[in-house]
């Protein structure tokens, strides 16, 4: 009944404008229903299981150097985890580049624990049978910024330059389908199928690129970080594959996160 009514409205609008250039934005009862249950889902989120696992990994002596990550500098000094996630991506002098949280954790696993990049980058994303350690670790680290204001720094010249590079990556159209990030996330009130598409160029909506990540994905029931999210965006953008924890991914995340600065981060979330 409701369905027929909606279609009726669309038809009426379409009839009034014989060459419609944009779909009429009818209120979306589906999205409202999803939102209602989102809160329930977030209240008890299996992401917390990975947060627990990540904390255990953070404290454990592991790797060829049999060291824990407790001396890892996430930007606020060695061992300071609280609030670090909300202040990344940031510039790290020891690596001479801007790093997002997971890239930094990978850096620490290499420098402190002696793991190799090749080993960590081999299968960096969660599957039904395996959750890579950096994913649990970044979930733990992210949870320690729950309730804090996002404030990715822009004080270092390389942080400012990286933001601009990330912005250029965001708008760069190429590949088989001529897509850029902005093709889906550059205008207001759009959706793909039933999924709303936030406009990441606007601060009020850019927060949705950050909020809820790392996220427990209902599809498959696996934990995913922003490294995975960016990777899968490039896949759907019909691009080749970006390197895990690479500068490109950090730059794109710097652009998105700086745009979201000032919003309160609610911690690891739950995703469709």
């Amino acid at each position: 009944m409701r369905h027929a009514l909606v279609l009726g409205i669309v038809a009426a609008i379409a009839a009034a404008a014989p060459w419609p250039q944009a779909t009429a934005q009818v209120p979306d009862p589906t999205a409202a229903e999803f939102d209602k249950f989102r809160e329930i889902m977030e209240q008890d989120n299996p992401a917390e299981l990975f947060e627990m696992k990540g904390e255990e990994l953070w404290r454990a002596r592991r790797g060829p150097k049999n060291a824990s990550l407790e001396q890892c500098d996430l930007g606020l000094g060695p061992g300071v985890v609280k609030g670090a996630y909300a202040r990344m991506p940031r510039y790290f002098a020891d690596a001479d580049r801007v790093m997002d949280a997971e890239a930094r954790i990978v850096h620490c696993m290499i420098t402190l624990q002696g793991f190799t990049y090749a080993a960590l980058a081999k299968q960096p994303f969660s599957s039904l049978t395996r959750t890579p350690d950096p994913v649990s670790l970044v979930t733990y680290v992210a949870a320690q910024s729950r309730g804090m204001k996002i404030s990715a720094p822009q004080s270092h010249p390389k942080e400012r330059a990286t933001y601009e590079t990330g912005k250029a990556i965001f708008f760069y159209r190429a590949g088989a389908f001529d897509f850029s990030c902005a093709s889906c996330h550059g205008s207001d009130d759009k959706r793909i199928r039933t999924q709303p598409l936030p406009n990441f160029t606007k601060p009020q909506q850019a927060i949705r690129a950050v909020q809820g990540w790392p996220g427990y994905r209902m599809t498959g029931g696996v934990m995913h970080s922003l490294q995975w999210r960016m990777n899968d965006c490039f896949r759907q953008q019909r691009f080749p594959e970006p390197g895990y924890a690479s500068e490109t991914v950090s730059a794109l995340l710097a652009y998105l996160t700086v745009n979201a600065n000032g919003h309160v981060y609610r911690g690891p979330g739950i995703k469709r």
Partner: protein
Amino acid sequence: MHRTRRTVLKGVWAMGALATAVAAGLLGPGRAFAAWNKGAFEAKSALDAMRALGMSNAEDSKNIEIRAPDIAENGAVVPIDITSNIPGTTSISVFIEKNPFPYTGTFDVSQGAMPFVHVRVKIGESSPVRVVVAAGGKHYTTAKEVKVTIGGCGG
């Protein structure tokens, strides 16, 4: 402990007074039901499962609240809250009628829990979610339709 409970159950069956025994709390501290009911869990229809559980005579009730989405965002994780307002509720059972194996579970609240449960379930296609409540040796039922949509890409 398990063995003890089963012995008790056998005796109760012999007396043919299971419902009375459950209602009277004679089966504590173990669970009110016997071993995991393979027959019910492997039944291909909700009705067959209810028969295997002795619940097929359940009568419709307005005193069971099912809170579940009208349209689930993702069929892999559908949150369901069930509250029974029927006095003396001992258990809450869930059947997802269109699933290959509709019987999803029974929650025993007879030994010190409120008549409430929250659970998250997989729903393969749009389906009624049927709840059967046992109370005072009788069964009561209600159902709520949950639609499952297909998704886009992304997330």
